[in-house]
């Protein structure tokens, strides 16, 4: 679940939306609070100016014409004011003030204070000249100043702000929930088509790999995945087809010599024969059996190569003797086709390598030469401690075939059915050479022949 797309999307949506909402709420709250406080201060100022207007200079003596100010008189959550002259003489004070004194609050346009009854509030100071009441003569400005301090509880502001916060929280939660739900639904809808894809994939088996997946109705994001799966399917198909062809080839390569064995034995046993005829039959069975054995060994070596790293046990190998012992396998077949063999490997040539693996390489090169060299030709092995060359008198390998000659299951001709040439031998040569860290190459030589070279260092 943790790895699910929906979970991850929900988490990121919640995180991002929450961060945005918190920032927005902070800003909004600050703006609101500021506006409310300004409004509150404006009201305080209005009160203060109105109260200051009650103080007047009558015959040069200040006096306060108190009017009924119910807000300042009520016993519960009252407002407070105090008016005083510059000399500190208190001109008037609200009944709610009792013994408290507002003169000590900080003067200013609006400051937070603790009210005498312990509530939180704001206070404001206003200082202005006393009003001059109904005097004859030109109007004059009083030289005496009255200062009025007004303080009120800010419960209303706090209450408004609290309800704003509550609404914001509710809206934020609603938004968060809505956004995540919308994201989840969108993803679920988008992913629903992947379930169809999963069914399609589950439907695939080895027998039905020829179908490609259809990306019908899938979100664009899944398209590349489907394309890649289809590419993978194509590769698997190709490899399966190759395996199938290989199995068919192997079956052919084993059935054909088996048919020869059976026919030879059937025909030979069908009547009494001379010792020479029996001898010929036995020789033929021998040749076929050896070819089948070589094929089986090649198949096994190939399977081992495919199974994993080949165990290489290097020893000091006498090259000439190894070539000679490999040739024994093909001597009979070569003689039957009138092929000559010359072992011109240096007598003192020695190589530090795995003799069994090198034997696979040399045997298959000699087998290949025996099979493909035109009748009456010559096969020559040359070599020293650095390289080994198996040269035959041709015909040359067609140029279009040459680059592919070491590829597995590649056949130069439509089919060779001599039991060992179904595109395994030379592929095996290259595989084993790779395992030993050697290089093999094939080229047509100037004299019309073919040279297979193994670099031994």
């Amino acid at each position: 679940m943790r790895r699910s797309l929906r979970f991850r999307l929900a988490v990121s949506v919640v995180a991002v939306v929450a961060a945005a909402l918190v920032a927005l709420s902070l800003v909004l709250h600050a703006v609101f609070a500021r506006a409310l406080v300004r409004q509150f201060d404006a009201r305080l100022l209005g009160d203060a100016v109105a109260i200051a207007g009650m103080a007047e200079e009558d015959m040069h003596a200040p006096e306060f014409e108190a009017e009924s100010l119910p807000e300042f008189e009520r016993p519960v959550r009252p407002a407070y004011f105090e008016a005083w002259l510059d000399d500190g003489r208190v001109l008037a004070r609200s009944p709610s003030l009792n013994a408290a004194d507002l003169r000590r609050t900080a003067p200013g346009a609006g400051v937070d204070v603790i009210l005498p009854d312990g509530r939180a509030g704001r206070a404001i100071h206003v200082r202005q000249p006393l009003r001059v009441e109904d005097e004859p003569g030109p109007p004059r400005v009083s030289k005496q100043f009255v200062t009025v301090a007004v303080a009120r509880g800010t419960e209303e502001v706090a209450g408004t702000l609290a309800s704003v916060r509550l609404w914001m929280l509710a809206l934020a939660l609603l938004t968060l929930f809505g956004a995540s739900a919308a994201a989840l639904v969108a993803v679920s809808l988008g992913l629903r088509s992947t379930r169809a894809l999963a069914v399609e994939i589950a439907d695939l088996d080895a027998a039905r790999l020829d179908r490609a997946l259809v990306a019908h109705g899938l979100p664009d994001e899944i398209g590349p995945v489907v394309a890649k799966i289809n590419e993978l399917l194509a590769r698997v198909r190709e490899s399966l087809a190759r395996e199938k062809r290989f199995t068919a080839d192997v079956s052919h390569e084993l059935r054909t010599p088996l048919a020869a064995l059976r026919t030879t034995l059937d025909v030979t046993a069908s009547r009494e024969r001379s010792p020479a005829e029996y001898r010929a039959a036995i020789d033929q069975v021998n040749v076929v059996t050896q070819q089948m054995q070589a094929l089986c060994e090649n198949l096994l070596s190939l399977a081992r190569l495919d199974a994993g790293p080949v165990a290489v046990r290097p020893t000091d190998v006498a090259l000439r003797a190894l070539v000679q012992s490999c040739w024994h396998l093909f001597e009979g077949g070569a003689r039957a086709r009138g092929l000559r063999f010359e072992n011109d490997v240096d007598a003192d040539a020695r190589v530090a390598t795995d003799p069994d693996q090198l034997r696979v390489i040399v045997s298959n090169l000699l087998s290949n030469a025996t099979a493909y060299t035109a009748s009456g030709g010559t096969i020559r092995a040359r070599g020293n401690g650095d390289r080994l060359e198996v040269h035959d008198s041709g015909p040359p390998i067609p140029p279009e075939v040459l680059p592919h000659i070491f590829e597995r299951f590649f056949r130069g001709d439509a089919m060779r059915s001599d039991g060992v040439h179904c595109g395994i031998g030379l592929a095996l040569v290259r595989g084993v050479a790779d395992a030993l860290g050697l290089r093999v190459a094939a080229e047509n030589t100037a004299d019309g022949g073919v040279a297979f070279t193994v670099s031994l260092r």
Partner: protein
Amino acid sequence: MRVLVVEDYEPLARSLAQGLREAAYAVDVTGDGAAALELARTNAYDALVLDLMVPKLDGLSVLRRLRADGSRAGVLIITARDQVPDRVGALDLGADDYLVKPFAFEELLARLRAVIRRRYGAAENLVRVGDLELDGAARTVKRGGRAIALSAREFALLEYLALRRGQVVTRTEIWEHVYDFAAEPSSNVVDVYVGYLRRKLGDGEGGAARLIQTHRGLGYALEAPEPT
């Protein structure tokens, strides 16, 4: 009966040829499809034993082109491919029968006999002409109930005449269907063998009817004489 063996695996081709010759067939062998097509076009083979996977031209192509040429030679496919589509494909292209390698040689002989028999419109291996009885499967010949030992070539000659009984068969036809490339051509080899055969059958001797008729200037015919 003359057969072309198309098989590129030498040991198998060699044994097939030996076995078929010993079964009184005239046998030619080739290892590649192109040569097979050429040989089949220029010689009157009664049947081809055709491997599908041969170099140069694969067996199915050989078969297709032969049938396109109108050849009616019997074709027995021998192949390592054992899948049903392979068999169906080959039979649909005009092959007469299909054998999967490896096979018992006896079975190949039996199927080959059937293929050739069908070609000559015969339903069974036993041919009777007058008091002569020829069993193609057992390769035995009886006249008046008495078994007669024949050489492979003599048997082949008699079998060919028997399959075409009642018809005049030319010397050229006999040469084409009873002799392979290994035979030395000579002007009267057919006449000589007909002579051997007549002697062994006691044809027209000691009161026996003459079954192998000579049609001067034309050839020979195997038929029971009209009752007189």
